[in-house]
């Protein structure tokens, strides 16, 4: 996840960004808590996928594959929505 950020001398003058730059703006670094997904406990009910506001639950071939930490802001909704009997997602402190 850790990406080298530019120093002030490398930035374009006047806050100018290229168009479409939101695709490269990885909001995952806002996170202070991180969801940990347990594949063995997961029942693939997709509640996390439905509720995730950042489309950060990766689903492929009808199965949850994991969490896209580039965009996950650590809001914890997925862990909250994961059924109490399943508890496949738990939140842990983000290590910086």
């Amino acid at each position, binding site marked *: 996840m850790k990406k080298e*950020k*530019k*120093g*002030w*001398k490398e*930035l374009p*003058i*006047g*806050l*100018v*960004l*290229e*168009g*479409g*730059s939101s695709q490269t703006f990885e909001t995952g*670094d*806002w996170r202070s808590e991180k969801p940990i997904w347990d594949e063995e406990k997961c029942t693939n009910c997709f509640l996390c996928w439905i509720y995730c506001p950042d489309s950060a639950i990766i689903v492929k071939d009808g199965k949850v594959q994991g969490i896209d930490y580039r965009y996950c802001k650590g809001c914890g909704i997925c862990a909250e929505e994961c059924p109490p009997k399943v508890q496949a997602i738990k939140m842990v402190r983000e290590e910086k």
Partner: protein
Amino acid sequence: MIVARTGNEAMAEAMRQINPDVVAAYPITPATEVVQLFSKFVHDGKVTTEFVPAESEHSAISACVGASSAGARVMTSTASQGLALMHEILFIAAGLRLPIVICLVNRSLSSPINIHCDHSDSLASRDSGWIQIFSENTQEAYDSTIMAVKIAEKALLPAMVTTDGFIISHGMERVEMVDDDAVPKWLGTRQAKTSLLDVDNPITLGALDLQDYFFEHKRSEIDAMNHVLPIIEEVQNEFGEKFGRHYPIVDEYKMDDAVVAILAMGSTGGTGKVAVDKMREQGKKVGLVRCRIFRPFPKDAMLKAIAKVKVLGIMDRSDTMSTLGGHLYNECRSILYDSNTRPLMKNFIYGLGGRDISIEDIESVYTGLFDIEKSGKVDENIVYYGVRGE
């Protein structure tokens, strides 16, 4: 061409010759005439400018930001409350590095409401990231307006050129004007690296910038200010060579052997020079320093000018409301910390709300400074000159 013009007329004429791509403005006393006259130039086809009569100063400067982002050469004019209403957008113009030029006519800020000159309006914007150039007279206002366009575009920072409300703005003076053709030729066209209207190369401007990059962008803006004084020097030299009028960063008048001096800004510089001449005739070694560029503050040139005199009277047409005196006084006390020699200093807050300052007043200030020179001490650091009840 030698003509008789008021400060407002001279600034409007400069704008006519510059022929900016866009002028967006809202009228306010005592700057009204600048854009009123300019709007007539638009009507009469003397300029090709897109003129936007906005519904407020906030809208006027916002339109300037938009137009400047599109790559246009943009100007406006305002005063006092108008500049205060622009305050929010001033920082945005500077942060986006847009070389907008404001012809600013200094007028006191309410309350109490007043239409006459002091420097509280421009100096309340001193931290906005704008270059600030103060004029002593109409000629300088005209010349500085033209130079400011080049300075702003080279520095990629906005600039305001000021005159003193009514004293310069409405006072008729002799002005040497440059030929109409020569101004646009000297300035060339603005070469903006990006344009919001360039749909083939889309850009995002002014995006949200949080903990991860805000500081870096601000640091870059602060650094831009570090490079402004050499740019001003270069443009002033170019202007001097081309048009024959030379301007310094800090204006020193009879300072070579001066024992006591005053430091002032704006039209008081001119009044003070007459007082200096009168006192020099009586053999008194007085001098005057005029701060022409207030932002960025010209530390080295100012130290060179003021550090060598024995007593310095600093004339501020504004107060910082900090209990520490006026703006110039505070800047000078700050830069003198790094100096091995420093004069005894006294701050004279004067002329608020347009209260007149005469040649005789300034002579009396000099007389007071000689008393300090004799006694070797300053009894009162900050005085309010010309106010009743002191």
